[in-house]
Every structure is written in structure tokens, then in C-alpha cells.
């Protein structure tokens, strides 16, 4: 089962590299996405057996994040079919400085997408820290070409920063791994294998200072990947310059994988009785990330960057939730789900907007409601969802995290949390409203779209509207009702993270 989950995408990716552009790669992409989603669904039915003597097994957190990833990938690949069909593959004008640029080969793109899925799946299932590290680094490497899909100077710059920063960060995580290994070694030679389970079982035996420094290194390392401020610096560039569907995957799936890696080491620390230290760090990082995000969201002129910073904010909320512990962890898990769905939806909607307006500037765009009714609805709905307004799912999780803070009487944290949330809300409200409402800012250069849109209801390609719509519907549902199964998995995951 697990082998299938990893193997199918990887093999398909390798195949995709060799088939020629056209409908075939797209079909392959869609097929793999569906298969993977099906397998994931199967995982919910039957517990998959651990393989490689427990190196790969699917515990509750893994299952949660795997499901998110798979679902998102399915939606994104549906979107991608339409997207790739509409992309013109010749060289074309850049809409900012009018530079000429082309796209990467479609087959390469699809190949990387599939490998990306495979590596992320590997992250969610690997229980061995070394393997986990390998997987996370691999995600970085296969996603780099995705960011550089548009062969464009700015996306190139973004890619470079992405690789450098993430690789350096991950390298630190590697050192953390070795520290962990040392911590797991006693005088003489016997030694605990670096499996989450074994480590947690005889956590007390671990050598404290080494474990602590291992935690620091891994937190910084994987935190870089996860986008905790001040390690988040690659994130806005990569998200803003990559194609929207890639941004959706990066922000919705990849960040979660990094978060999962952080959770793993936190699990071990918590089991070893260093949870208070770990928590204080997580809370600190969380609030600081929210602060930085707020500072850059307000008055942001590039709306994809704004979405990226909002991801920084929500990663901050996640680590804050885990750091608060108790109900907060459950809240954080729920928040991860909601955030992925909502953010992906927003990025896809953003993609539609860019496709029509040929601009990413919040100053130039207005009247989305009148030009793209459905996308306008998605855009504003996504804004309300991402800022945690009821009846959307993020409201519940943010409420839970607030409750966790107040129940422990941590008024300072709660107030800072609310204050930052409100600043972010105000900033976003200004941007989203002026984009969605008002008269259409009209065609920047040529007609509104290649095909000249008329303002009637369903004037938008179905493939580019349905996936975000589905995601939005899901967050809405999660805001009004949490299915039993999901609830159970969330609780298991929370329990696992708490270390009991």
C-alpha cells in the first residue's frame, strides 16, 4: 500500500519525462492524481501495514497530512489540465517589463509535479529521521524546476533563493539528525534506531543536551522550509513567481510536510520531557511569524506575495497552537487542514485573475466581481475564509487556539494573537475589497482576455473554477460540521504530538 502510494507517482513521473508534450502528460497527471487520491481514501478504510520494519508507516499525523496533500494534488491537477491546455508554449511578452520569456517543457513540468507528489508522500510516511530528512530535501530539489516553469528572470531569481535558502536550512536539519543520533547513543555501542516510535519509547534514556541541540537545529532547518519568520524569506518570492497551481501546492502541501517534520522532533522532545522548552520556542516563532506576516501583508502591492505572507502567518498560527499544547494541538491540526484548503483555493482563484488581468498588482486590479463573477465570489469568499470569519473552517480552529491560550491564562499571548489577527484582517480587507469591487479596471494592454470575456455568469472555463469552488465548499463544510472520522484522526494526531 505505502509502496504504491510512493511508487506510482515516482514511476509515472519518470515516464512523463520521456513522453512528448500534448494531451498525454496531462492525462497521465490526472490519472496518477486520481489513483493517489483513491489509495489515500483506501488508507482511511484500512490501516496500511508498516513496511521496511517500521521505517515507513502511516500514523495519525502522517495520515492527516497525506490526505491533505493528496486531495490538494487532485484538485490542482484538474486545474492543471485546463491551465496547461491554455498556456501558449511559444515565447511571449512579460506583462511587467515586456521581456520575452518561454515556458519549461510541459513534460518536465508534469514529471516534476509527479515526483513532487511522490516525495511529499514519502515525507508523510517516513518514520525514520534520516529518511525524513532525505525526503524533505528531495521535495526541495524536485520543486525547484516547478518554480522556474516560466523561464523568466524573476522566477529564476526566486528559484535560486529557494534552493540556496532551503538547502542551507535543510543542511542544518541534517546536523540536527546527527545530533539526534549521538543523543541516541550511549557509552559503548548499543544504540536506539532513529525511528520516531523507538525514540519515544525510551525517550528518558536520550542524552538531554544533545537532544536539545538536535531540536534547535531541526527546528531551524525544517522551520526554514516551513516558513517560520525570520527563516521565511524564500517563501514570498517563490510563491509569487511560480505558476499559481504550483504556489497552491507549495503553500498548501509542502509547508505542511515541513511542519510535520518539525512535529516529529517535537514529539520526541515532548516524550523526553523537554516539552516546556520546545513549546516556548514554538510560541515565540509563531507570534513572530504572525508579526512579520502582518507587517508585509498590510499595503502589499503584489497579491500573490500577500497570499504567501498569509501562509507565513498561518504557519505561525500552527506552531503557536502546538506550542500552547492541550486543545491548541487539536486546533493546530484542524487549522492545518483548513489553511491548506483555503490557501489552495485562493491561489487557484489568483491564477484565474492573473490569466485575465495579466497583472499581479493590487493597485491595478479592480472590479473582479463584474469581470469574473465566479472568481470574484471565490476571491472574496477565500478572503473571508482565510481571515477566519465564520462560517468558514479557519474560524473554528482559530477559536480553539485562542481558547487554548486563554484557558491557560496566557493573556499576553492571546492579546498579541488577536491584535495581529485583526491587523492582518484590516490589511487584507482593504486589498481584497478594492480588487473585487468597484468598476473593472479594464484591459491593461489588449482586450480583457485572449477570448474577450463577456460579463455573464458562467463565462469562465469550468476546469479553472470548479477545483477552487470544491475546496471552498470543503472549508465551508468544515466550518459548520466536522465529520466523525476526521475528528477521530485529528484527536489521534493531537495525542500523538502531545506524546501520549
Amino acid at each position, binding site marked *: 500500500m505505502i509502496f504504491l502510494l510512493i511508487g506510482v507517482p515516482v514511476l509515472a513521473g519518470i515516464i512523463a519525462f520521456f513522453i512528448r508534450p500534448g494531451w498525454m502528460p496531462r492525462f497521465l497527471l490526472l490519472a496518477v492524481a486520481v489513483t493517489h487520491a483513491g489509495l489515500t481514501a483506501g488508507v482511511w478504510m484500512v490501516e496500511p501495514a508498516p513496511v521496511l520494519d517500521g521505517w515507513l508507516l502511516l500514523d495519525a499525523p502522517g495520515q492527516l497530512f497525506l490526505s491533505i496533500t493528496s486531495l490538494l494534488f487532485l484538485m490542482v491537477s484538474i486545474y492543471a489540465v485546463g491551465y496547461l491546455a491554455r498556456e501558449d508554449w511559444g515565447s511571449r511578452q512579460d506583462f511587467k517589463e515586456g521581456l520575452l520569456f518561454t515556458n519549461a517543457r510541459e513534460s518536465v513540468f508534469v514529471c516534476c509535479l509527479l515526483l513532487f507528489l511522490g516525495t511529499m508522500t514519502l515525507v508523510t510516511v517516513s518514520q525514520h529521521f534520516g529518511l525524513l530528512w532525505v525526503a524533505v530535501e528531495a521535495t526541495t530539489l524536485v520543486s525547484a524546476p516547478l518554480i522556474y516553469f516560466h523561464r523568466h528572470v524573476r522566477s529564476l531569481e526566486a528559484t*535560486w*533563493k529557494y534552493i*540556496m*535558502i532551503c538547502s*542551507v*536550512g535543510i543542511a*542544518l536539519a541534517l546536523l540536527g539528525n546527527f545530533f539526534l543520533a549521538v543523543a541516541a547513543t550511549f557509552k559503548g555501542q548499543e544504540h536506539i534506531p532513529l525511528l520516531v516510535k523507538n525514540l519515544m519509547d525510551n525517550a528518558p534514556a536520550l542524552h538531554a*543536551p544533545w537532544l536539545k*541541540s538536535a531540536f*534547535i*537545529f531541526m527546528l*531551524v532547518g525544517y522551520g526554514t522550509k516551513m516558513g517560520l519568520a*525570520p*527563516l521565511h*524569506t*524564500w517563501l*514570498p518570492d517563490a510563491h509569487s513567481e511560480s505558476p499559481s497551481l504550483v504556489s497552491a501546492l507549495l503553500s498548501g502541501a509542502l509547508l505542511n510536510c515541513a511542519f510535520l517534520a518539525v512535529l516529529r522532533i517535537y514529539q520526541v522532545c515532548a516524550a523526553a520531557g523537554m516539552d516546556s*522548552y520546545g513549546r516556548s*520556542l514554538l510560541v515565540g516563532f509563531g507570534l513572530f511569524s504572525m508579526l512579520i506576516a*502582518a*507587517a*508585509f501583508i*498590510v*499595503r502589499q502591492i503584489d497579491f500573490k506575495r500577500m497570499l504567501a505572507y498569509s501562509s507565513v502567518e498561518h504557519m505561525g498560527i500552527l506552531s503557536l497552537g502546538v506550542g500552547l499544547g492541550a*486543545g491548541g494541538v*487539536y486546533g493546530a491540526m484542524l487549522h492545518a487542514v483548513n489553511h491548506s484548503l483555503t490557501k489552495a483555493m485562493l491561489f487557484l482563484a489568483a491564477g484565474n485573475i492573473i490569466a485575465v488581468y495579466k497583472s499581479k498588482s493590487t493597485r491595478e486590479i479592480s472590479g473582479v*466581481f463584474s469581470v469574473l463573477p465566479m472568481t470574484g465570489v471565490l476571491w472574496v469568499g477565500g478572503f*473571508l475564509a482565510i*481571515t477566519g*470569519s*465564520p*462560517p468558514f473552517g479557519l*474560524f*473554528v480552529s482559530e*477559536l*480553539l487556539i*485562542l*481558547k487554548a491560550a*486563554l*484557558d491557560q491564562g496566557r493573556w499576553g499571548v492571546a492579546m498579541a494573537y*488577536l491584535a495581529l489577527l*485583526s*491587523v492582518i*484582517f*484590516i490589511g487584507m*480587507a*482593504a486589498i481584497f*475589497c*478594492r480588487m473585487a*469591487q*468597484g*468598476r473593472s479596471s479594464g484591459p491593461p494592454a489588449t482586450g480583457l482576455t485572449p477570448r474577450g470575456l463577456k460579463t455573464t*455568469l458562467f463565462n469562465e472555463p469550468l476546469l479553472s473554477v470548479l477545483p477552487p469552488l470544491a475546496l471552498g465548499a470543503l472549508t465551508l463544510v468544515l*466550518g*459548520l*460540521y*466536522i*465529520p*466523525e472520522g476526521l*475528528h477521530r484522526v485529528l484527536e489521534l494526531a493531537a495525542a500523538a504530538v502531545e506524546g501520549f
Partner: protein
Amino acid sequence: MGILFWGSLAIILAGGMASLALGRFSPWAGRVGSIGVFVGCLMGLAPAMDVIVTGAVMSWSMEWRMPYGSLSCRIDALSAFFLIPIFLVSGVSALYGSRYLKIHETTKNLGASWFFYSILVVSMALVVVARNGVLFLVVWEIMSLASFFLVTFEHEKESVRQAGWIYLTATHLGTFFLLVLFVVLAREAGSMDFDRFEAMRFHSAAIAGPAFIFAVIGFGTKAGFIPFHVWLPEAHPAAPSHVSALMSGVMIKTGIYGLVRTLTFLSPPQIWWGWLLVGVGLTSGVIGVLFALAQHDLKRLLAYHSVENIGIIALGLGLGLIGTATHQPVLACLGFGGGLLHVLNHALFKGLLFLGAGSVLHATGTREMDRLGGLINRMPWTSATFAAGSVAICGLPPLNGFISEFLIYVGAYHAMGRPDVSIPSAGVIVGLAMIGTLAVACFTKVLGVVFLGEPRTEAAAKAHESDWAMRIPMIALALGCVAVAAAAPWIVGLMSPIVSGVAGIPAQAVKTHLRIIQGPLESVTWMALLLVFGIAILAMLRKRLLAGRPVDRAGTWDCGYAMPSARMQYTSSSYAKPLIHLFDGILQTKTSYDAPVDLFPARAGLHTHTEDVFRRRIYEPLFHAVDRFRSSLRWMQEGRVQVYILYIAVTLVVLLIGGL
């Protein structure tokens, strides 16, 4: 009865959905939507009435797969009392809106607008029946969002977008305080169910005090207590008039409802709560009406009057709290009774006034009072109903506004003798008197400048009366004002269960205490009758006297000036000038005057502008400070990858040095 209630909500929603489905540019969208809301509201009135008259409480509860959530609702006397204005005003406004929005039929998506309208109505109804914190917050926020979309109906206008943004911001910030409030209560109660909260009766001042503060801020933002009122004067003018009527008439009252409901969780009240509310009430009342006086924009003026009336309500509630805290049941009953009754009254006459303003806007295309005038001859119905509304809102007999203020007055006079409460009582008396007289000043201004005299512009001269679909709602509300005034003793009798719930006094005792006031109220009604009677007699007398004597019409006597023109009439600015001058310390009106030059001046002008002091002095500086701090962090993302990696290194080193 319960089925009737849910059925009405279902009908309203169905209407909205259908209208949304019919979508943009279909003439049916508007009709279906408005009819759905109208019918649903009529249906919904029945159960509410039933609960109030029979006192039978309806409640529903079921499992909800949400953390701390349970789908439990209840219609008790308090909820029912708030449901009545909600359904009443929503219904008539819907009827009004069906005609009012017709001009946008070809340009805008009426379907969406009616969809949000129905959502707003339903969510308001649910807010007052919700019995669980999470459910309450959810419907509360849905209500705010729906109204936001209604406010930004004409979002092509920059000003409207700005207003919408301010409203959204304000309401969201308010909601955060409510989040904290409910979470804090839930921490003690172990659940978010209101039943648990009521069972707890949070005694400890450590919880109750802060909770009360959070409630006042959170709900006060929605209700429009000064200084949290800044969104009202922006949002109400921006919204379409039937929506303004709905928002100002009933939506802001949900804030009052929330506050009162919270009071039923917290007991016994400490006396400073009462002082606080009285203080808030005085500020909101007096400052609100002063700002209203200074406005030139008709709907802005009305919006500020909402602030004023919310202030009056707060005065009543404050007195009630003081009464409960100092064990003076009579004061408690009169205070709460007056405050709550004023909720109903304000819903009626403020709805009426906004609808009237709407039909003026509809007929002349402007809200600038100084561009209007003489409408009474062109729009008799609108003018008459507006006049009635003005008398009511000034709290003058014989209409309903007077009744609630009368209760509060009597309460204040009653408590006067007790040295410990005499100061707030005296404050209430002085405050109410000033508010009343200022309101008279304000509405004689509105009436005189907008409806009386000569039209000042072409638009005003060409104005036409709006048709029945818009007239009937206004007439209905006007009749409502009369009816409440006439039935005052009976209504006050009905209110005893509501008041007893809020004041924590057994209903029977409340009945006896309220009986003090019922007698006088009957006499008040007699006085009103006598007044009407006298007016009729005198009118007839005059007719008789003038019969057969020369009665002719001439130009207004202008003290010998040869050729008077409409431009020479007293404008709203000039009318309000003395009072504005008197209170300039608060209003800080900006005046720009370009004086006439040389012998034959080409042009001369005087412009006065009164912007909201609180917005300029509190909120804008605050926002700027935050913004400055924000921009002081921008250097972090300065572009060089080396620097970014330096951040990583520094973080690492700091953590290591801290950790090891």
C-alpha cells in the same frame, strides 16, 4: 408555533435563494426576493407574539459536531421581544426595497442583493434565539458579513467602498472582543451553552467585571456606543435606504440584545456597571445628537441619531443595573423597562425616518439637505410620515418616543432621593432633557429645510411622490408609532416577564412594580387624546371664524425686501449655527469662508464641515502609529539571498547560546 418560526425562516431563505438563482438583470429576482422576505416576516411575527402574550417558551436543541458547539435555540420573552421589531421592520423594508431597487434592475445583480438581505434577516433572527456561544458567534458574524455586502451594494463608488471597509473592520474588531468574552465564560462554565452560563451566574468579580467590559465593547461596537460608533455614520448613508432602515432600525439592536443577554449570565451586577452604562449613554446621547445637528447629509444625520437613541437605551439599562445593584426593584424595572421599550420604539421611528429619507433621495437624487426644500407640497405622504417620525424621535408626546423616555425619567426622579444613586439619576434627567431639546432643534431643522419652504434646486422642484409600494411601509411604521403610544400601558404590562428575566426579579414582583407606571401611562394616553381633541376643536374653530371672511394668499413677508429668492432661506447650516457655536468645543467644526470681494462680488461662499472627532482623534492616529511601525519592518525583506541566510545563521546562534 415553533414550526411556524422555522417555516418563516425557511421561506425567507428560499426567497433569497430563488432570487439569487434568477440572478442578475431579471426583473423577477427583485420581486421574488422581496415577497419571500415579506411573507416570511409576517409568518414569523406570529410565534414571537405568541411567546410574549402567552409566556410559553419554545426551545430546541440538538447535537452539533463542532468543538463546544450545540445547535440549541430558544425563544424566551427576551428573544421574542427582539424578534418582533426584526420581523416587522425587515418585512416592511423588503416591501419598500422591491420598488426602491427597481432603478438598478438593468445595471446590478439584484439577485445577490436580495440573497444577502434574506441572509441578514435570518441571521438576525437566529442571533436572538441562539443558545450556544459558537452558534451565536457564527450567526453573529454571518449577520455582519451579509450587511457588509448590502452596504457595498453600489460599490462602484469609492466612498461606498471606503464605508464598507470601515464597517467591516469595526464589526470584525468588535467580534474579537466577543470571542474573548465567550471563551472566558466558557472557561468557567466548561461549555459554551448559554444554559450553562445562566446556571453558573458568574458571581466572582474577577470574571464578571472583565466579562462585562468585553461585552460593552464588543456589543457596543455593533450597537454604536460612542466611541465605537465610527462605522455608523459611514455605513448607513452608503447603504441603500431600505437596508439603512433595517440596519439602523434593528441590526444595531442585536448589540443591545447581546449586552442584555450577557447581563443575564452575570449576577449580581456591581453598581459601577450601572455608572459605566449611564456614562456611556450620556456621552452617546448628547454627543450623538450634537453631531447629528452638525450634518448636512440627511442619512448621515439619521445615522448619528441612531447613536443618540442607543445612548438613551444605555441610560435606561444603566439605571436598571443601578437599581438591581442597590436593591431598588422599582428603579430596576423602570430603567430596564424604559430601555427595552425604547428598542422597539426606535426600531419603528428610525426605520420610518430612513425610509422617508430614502424616498426623498429616490425622488430628488440627493441627500444634501441644503439642495432640497418645499417637498411637502410635492411629496405629501412622505412629508407627513416623516413629520410623524420626527415628533416620535424627539420623544415628544403624543407619540411612542415619549413613552420610553417617560419611564426612564420617572425612574430617575424616583431614585433621586437616594444619595448613593442621586448623581447618575440627576445625570440622566439633565441628559435626557438636553438630548430631547437638541433633537427638537435637529428635526425642526430637517423638517424645515428638507420639506418646508421653497425648493432650493431644480431637482427638489421636480420631485414626485413615490408610489404605494414605498408609501405603505412608511404609513405602516407611522401607525406603529401611534399604536405603541396608545397601547403603552398594556405593552408595559406585557413586558414584565422580559424585565424580570433581565433584572433577576420574580415576574410577579415586576408586575406590581410596573403597576406604578401603568396608571400614569394611562393618564398620559388621556392627555394625548385631549391634545388631539383640542387640536381638532381649535382647527374647526378657526375654520368657523374664517368662514365668510377674506382669506387670501400672498408672498411671504420678507421685511420689505423686494425680490426674495429661494436661496435666501435659512439653510441647515445657518439654522444649526448657534448651537454648533455653543458646543464647538466638542464638535470642532471646520469652517472655510471665502469672503465677497470688491463692490460687485462675483462669488462668495461659506463651507462648514464637521467630521467625527473620535475618528480623527483616536482611530486615525492609532492606525497611523501601527502603520508606521509596520513600515519600519520593511527592510527585513530587502532581496539579497546572503542576508536571508544570515538571518538563519543568527537565529541559530541565538537559539544555541540561549539553549546551551
